[in-house]
């Protein structure tokens, strides 16, 4: 455990050793397992990375860091929350009336919010009206009494945090900095949406899924000081001021139709870390000075009142700032604030330098002391000035990343094309003989470890929608330059190798692929994937660049895209894409139109009528989501500018405007459609059974849907027919793909014309994180045959079990839904059976799949290569698989961190990922496709048994890997999907 230099302590009620133990139980581990040595864990999992037995000394260091990270407890980080509260209380006096009213407001109405969050009790109309009335009053009062722009207050607040945040150096690390004040910490942001945790602090460390350690002191400080202060001025509190739907909070808590995320913060951006590395903070300060001079010159030329240059916002369909004032829209204030944060950043690095020197003095190991002194020297130079060496560049980058995280929410803050902008430093060091590839891997591994040191803090409801605790920091490799030439380099390879040693759940590795991609790089990517973990994911430059151009990016900027967070292709460094803003449930739209209000008596006479009704309802829901998200973004602009982040997003300095107010060169907001395949499958079912075969009427079908197909044998037969005899999206039979493509285009065409308050467009995408589980839990059965409450389909993937014609069919189905209308990313989960992927032939196969899919127009694919029996065992015995990393959506997660529903979803995905054939002898029975989740629940019950019987039960319920898993054994010339019989028998048995 590293020495902890403590200016503030939190969680100090527990010693580190106690912490480790309580963590083990917090993550659901058996005490006995937790007491084992950390090394024992890695003996179990077959996909464990290369052990530290190699000759390269860096492997040992990385292995130790990895073990420390796997052992670290998940803890709440409240230090930023407490520091900014302290700052605002002490330095930004509230108007007198606010000081009187706000505590009464908190006392009177926090209970209603608590009940809303805890029990889903809607807040009453008068509570909402009173709250909004008071908010308007506070805002008026603040406007009159303000002595300086709010953005300057927030700049000072960040400086205050950076001056006081504890600086912790852990053993072995060569890159230092703390994303939170815990080794693995979940920071709370009361100024944004942190109050959503109001109802959960009391059992945060005991909750079933993703327990987070919280000390009694933390809880007391949050409840007594932090929350009361921010209750009336957080984004959560203030967004309703701009909302057209006063019931917004209630609508969102219902979680059935759409969810909006930006209460929690916007983030989701690829900052221009490259400029920090190249120019340093001092260079940025010089740029601001120039911009200020230019502003004054322009002002004096034009007289007062000029609004400055209006940036080429995405599309520019809306004038910025209409109808609301923005805290970061005023240029002098912005520049002042930006300068404050940069100077604070320089001082922060000086603190770090002193801290490293101090630590070096105390260190008994002379080798480690030298390393720390070297770090002290590095902090003298960067990020204040330009980096000279590879090590300096990495430390400069990470320091800037830390500051971004001290300023605001930490979701989807991505590194961009790291192999591009770090390469010159690597090259130079290599030529000067200062670095070896091994040393570079060591530094990169340390860096990857640092990036994994944080978690998002979600409440229980958010955990359903975003299971897996991903902060979704993206890191992009490969791709082309603006001339279309392959841009990958040696560093791209070294990064993959460094990842291979670390194998942590984040950051997310994204690989840009194009026809001239280096075969060496792709082969290494396949090898890396074959060991499990689901990284890297593949992105097709040829399909994505045109989609970004269509959204409004220049060719050059589109070619420089990087993946934000999970799968969102965004312009790196120049955009504020707010990529994770909203998620809409498409099946909920279908559910609405198939259940018209009583008396409306809609009876559709054709598929066209249904399609028209769907489009109308979709437009309505998109409008609602847009209105809701607009209000949140306006609240950010008005009340929570982020001046530091703004200095490193191109456009803001030139415009003199904060990113929240549209300062970036490109400004979009991401809006995801969830459950595309469910809608396509349902429409196909209605089309075939009702309109073509006329087997039953729509109302008969809907009666069965409303009964969840459970009212009698007739409905069960109908469900089986739906599952077996109606083609599904993913089988490339034609109709389901037609509907998927049509709905995808309809969705994009509905979303795309909307503009956000920052002057950019809404960008449609198809990725879900785990919102498909959350939405699915709140939705009844569907005409596709899906039972009520079951997860929807993830990303643009087919339904679990529908992909029985093999990966090429599901890939080509996804192509049908893809195209340049998909502006904000799409995630296709493709599971491959490790059986097929052995050796060099396996690489060729993955290469054939990936390149074939991309040449046909596919946009993105991520492979989960995992033996289902490993997952089943991991569900039954979490303690044996602490480091089992699985691909979830656009990100990977430790399997143990998932909700039970999500674990089942992942298992179901992996069970039916086998290639197969259509037609006659081999269609797998419907029951086995849909029964898997029932079975997995069964496994879970049995897994609680102490004896070894849990294993045998799970093996019985899920056929084991050899030839009974329901997977096809591809035997030359033989048509057989083995073991239908055995696997179904097993399913039957387990049900009885």
């Amino acid at each position, binding site marked *: 455990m590293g020495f902890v230099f403590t200016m503030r302590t939190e969680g100090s009620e527990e010693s580190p050793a106690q912490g480790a133990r309580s963590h083990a139980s917090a993550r659901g581990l058996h005490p006995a397992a937790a007491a084992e040595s950390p090394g024992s864990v890695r003996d179990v999992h077959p996909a464990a990375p290369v052990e530290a037995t190699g000759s390269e000394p860096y492997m040992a260091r990385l292995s130790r860091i990895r073990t420390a990270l796997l052992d670290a407890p998940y803890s709440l980080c409240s230090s930023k929350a407490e520091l900014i509260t302290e700052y605002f209380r002490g330095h930004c006096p509230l108007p007198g009336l606010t000081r009187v009213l706000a505590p009464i407001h908190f006392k009177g109405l926090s209970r209603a919010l608590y009940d809303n969050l805890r029990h889903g009790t809607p807040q009453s109309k008068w509570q909402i009206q009173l709250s909004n009335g008071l908010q308007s009053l506070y805002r008026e009062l603040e406007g009159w009494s303000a002595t300086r722009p709010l953005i300057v207050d927030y700049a000072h607040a960040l400086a205050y945090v950076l001056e006081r945040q504890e600086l912790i150096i852990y053993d072995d690390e060569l890159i230092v900095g703390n994303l939170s004040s815990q080794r693995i910490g979940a920071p709370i942001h009361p100024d944004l949406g942190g109050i959503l945790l109001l109802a959960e602090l009391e059992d945060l460390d005991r909750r079933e899924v993703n327990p987070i350690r919280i000390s009694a002191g933390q809880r007391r400080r949050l409840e007594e000081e932090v929350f009361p202060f921010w209750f009336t001025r957080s984004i959560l509190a203030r967004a309703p001021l701009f909302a057209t739907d006063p019931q917004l909070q209630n609508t969102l808590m219902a979680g059935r139709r759409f969810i909006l995320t930006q209460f929690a913060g916007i983030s989701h951006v690829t900052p221009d870390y490259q400029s920090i590395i190249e120019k340093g903070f001092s260079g940025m300060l010089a740029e601001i000075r120039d911009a200020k001079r230019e502003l004054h010159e322009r002002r004096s030329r034009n007289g007062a009142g000029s609004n400055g240059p209006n940036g080429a916002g995405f599309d520019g369909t809306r004038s910025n700032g209409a109808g609301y004032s923005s805290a970061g829209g005023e240029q002098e204030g912005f520049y002042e604030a930006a300068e404050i944060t940069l100077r604070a950043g320089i001082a922060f690095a000086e603190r770090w330098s002193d801290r490293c020197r101090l630590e070096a003095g105390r260190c008994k190991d002379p080798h480690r002391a030298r390393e720390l002194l070297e770090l002290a020297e590095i902090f003298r130079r960067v990020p204040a000035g330009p980096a000279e060496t590879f090590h300096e560049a990495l430390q400069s980058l990470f320091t800037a990343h830390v500051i971004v995280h001290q300023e605001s929410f930490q979701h989807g803050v991505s590194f961009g094309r790291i192999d591009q902008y770090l390469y010159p430093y690597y090259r130079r060091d290599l030529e000067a003989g200062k670095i070896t590839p091994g040393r570079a891997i060591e530094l990169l591994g340390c860096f990857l470890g640092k990036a994994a040191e944080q978690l998002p803090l979600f409440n229980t409801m958010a955990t359903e929608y975003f299971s897996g605790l991903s902060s979704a920091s993206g890191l992009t490799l490969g791709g082309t330059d603006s001339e279309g030439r392959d841009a990958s380099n040696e560093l791209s390879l070294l990064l993959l190798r460094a990842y291979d040693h670390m194998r942590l759940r984040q950051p997310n590795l994204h690989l840009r692929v194009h026809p001239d991609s280096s075969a060496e790089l792709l082969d290494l990517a396949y090898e890396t994937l074959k060991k499990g973990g689901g990284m890297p994911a593949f992105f097709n430059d040829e399909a994505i660049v045109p989609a970004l151009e269509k959204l409004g990016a220049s060719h050059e900027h589109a070619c420089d895209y990087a993946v934000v967070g999970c799968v969102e292709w965004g312009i790196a460094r120049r955009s504020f894409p707010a990529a994770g803003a909203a998620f809409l449930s498409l099946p909920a739209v279908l559910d609405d139109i198939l259940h018209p209000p009583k008396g409306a008596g809609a009876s559709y006479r054709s598929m066209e009528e249904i399609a028209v009704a769907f489009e109308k309802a979709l437009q309505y829901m998109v409008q609602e989501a847009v209105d809701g998200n607009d209000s949140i973004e306006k609240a950010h602009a008005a009340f929570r500018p982020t001046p530091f982040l703004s200095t490193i997003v191109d456009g803001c300095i030139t415009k003199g405007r904060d990113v929240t107010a549209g300062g970036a060169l490109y400004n979009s907001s991401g809006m995801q459609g969830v459950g595309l395949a469910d809608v396509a499958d349902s429409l196909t079912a209605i089309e075939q059974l009702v309109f073509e075969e006329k087997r039953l009427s729509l109302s008969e079908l809907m009666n069965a849907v409303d009964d969840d197909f459970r009212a009698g044998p007739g409905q069960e037969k109908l469900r089986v027919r739906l599952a077996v005899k109606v083609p599904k999206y993913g089988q490339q039979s034609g109709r389901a793909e037609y509907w998927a493509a049509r709905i995808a285009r309809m969705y994009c065409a509905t979303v795309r014309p909307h503009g956000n308050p920052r002057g950019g467009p809404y960008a449609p995408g198809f990725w879900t994180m785990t919102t498909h589980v959350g939405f699915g839990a709140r939705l009844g059965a569907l005409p596709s045959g899906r039972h009520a409450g079951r997860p929807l389909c993830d990303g643009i993937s087919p339904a679990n079990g529908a992909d029985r014609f093999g990966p090429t069919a599901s890939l080509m189905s996804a192509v049908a839904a893809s195209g340049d209308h998909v502006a904000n990313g799409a995630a296709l989960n493709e599971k491959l059976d490790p059986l097929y992927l052995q050796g060099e032939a396996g690489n060729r196969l993955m290469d*054939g799949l990936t390149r074939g899919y991309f040449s046909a127009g596919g946009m993105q694919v991520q492979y989960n290569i995992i033996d289902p029996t490993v997952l089943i065992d991991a569900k039954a015995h979490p303690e044996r698989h602490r480091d089992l990393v699985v691909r979830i959506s656009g990100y990977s997660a430790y399997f143990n961190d998932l909700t039970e529903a999500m674990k089942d979803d992942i298992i179901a995905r992996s069970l039916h990922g086998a290639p197969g054939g259509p037609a006659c002898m081999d269609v797998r029975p419907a029951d086995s496709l849909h029964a898997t989740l029932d079975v997995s629940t069964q496994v879970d019950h049995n897994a609680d048994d102490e004896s070894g019987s849990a294993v045998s039960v799970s093996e019985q319920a899920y056929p084991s890997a050899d*030839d009974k898993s329901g997977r096809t054994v591809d035997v*030359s010339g033989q*048509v057989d999907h083995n073991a239908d019989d055995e696997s179904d028998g097993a399913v039957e048995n387990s049900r009885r």
Partner: protein
Amino acid sequence: MSEDGKALIFDIQRFSMHDGPGIRTVVFFKGCSLDCRWCHNPEAVKAHYELAYYADRCIEGCRDCLPSCPEQALDDRIENRVDFSRCTDCGDCVDVCPADALSLVGRRMNCEDLLGEIEKDRSFFASSGGGVTLSGGEPVLQWRFLADFLPLLRERGIHTAIETCGAYPRELIQSVAPLVDLVLFDLKIMDSDKHRQLTGKRNEEVLANLRYLAGQGAALEVRMPVVPELNTSRENIEATCRFLAEAGIERLTLLPYNHLWEAKLPRLASNRKALGIAPPDGPFYGELSETFSRMGLEATV
């Protein structure tokens, strides 16, 4: 066979990796000139539609199919619902069954339909050096269809392979072989009497066709479906080596035996018996190819 320009196909498998190079789509033609006792695809033998019944898919308590049968060949016992002696393979019950427990094996496809299925994976053929493999059954028996169809694939630059047993008159392979890029030729057993005993036909025609193809310099891969004990005797190995050496063929591919086909038998109107041969374990094939190589033939699994 192809008077109407259609082929009788019983399955199309995409993403296949074992029947020729790269990612392939395998088209299974129905109807075969042999009736091998170990045949992996017993549903491929008859050159007409046939009903198959999957007891495991049948829904407990469902009797929907019973009234649909004009021959009263259906019974409500799950395990043995179809009286195949009365069944005329008319297929009337198939649409009624919600679970696909009753289904017809075989569908007639014209060139356009088949091409449509194949073209779905064209970009993967290109990216992996794959293509189409015609299998069966015995695809060569549908040579009239192939004469129309194969040129369409060639026009499109799609690599083609054909899996064949060789048991048919020379003229057939003469017309087909020039239209494909690779012939995968099954050599089962050298002793002609045993061949007849195990496959229903003597093997003179087979050997003559193989000699012919080798003589023509066709791209050829000879494959031996290994059936432990039945064709792994020393005599058969020696005879195989001798014959291939004479034909100027230096390599042999061994296709490992599996018994999964036996699960298919109860589904069909088939009087074939399960062989009860357990799939041999790992070292078996290594030793077998050793034996071949000692006799001068490179045999790989």
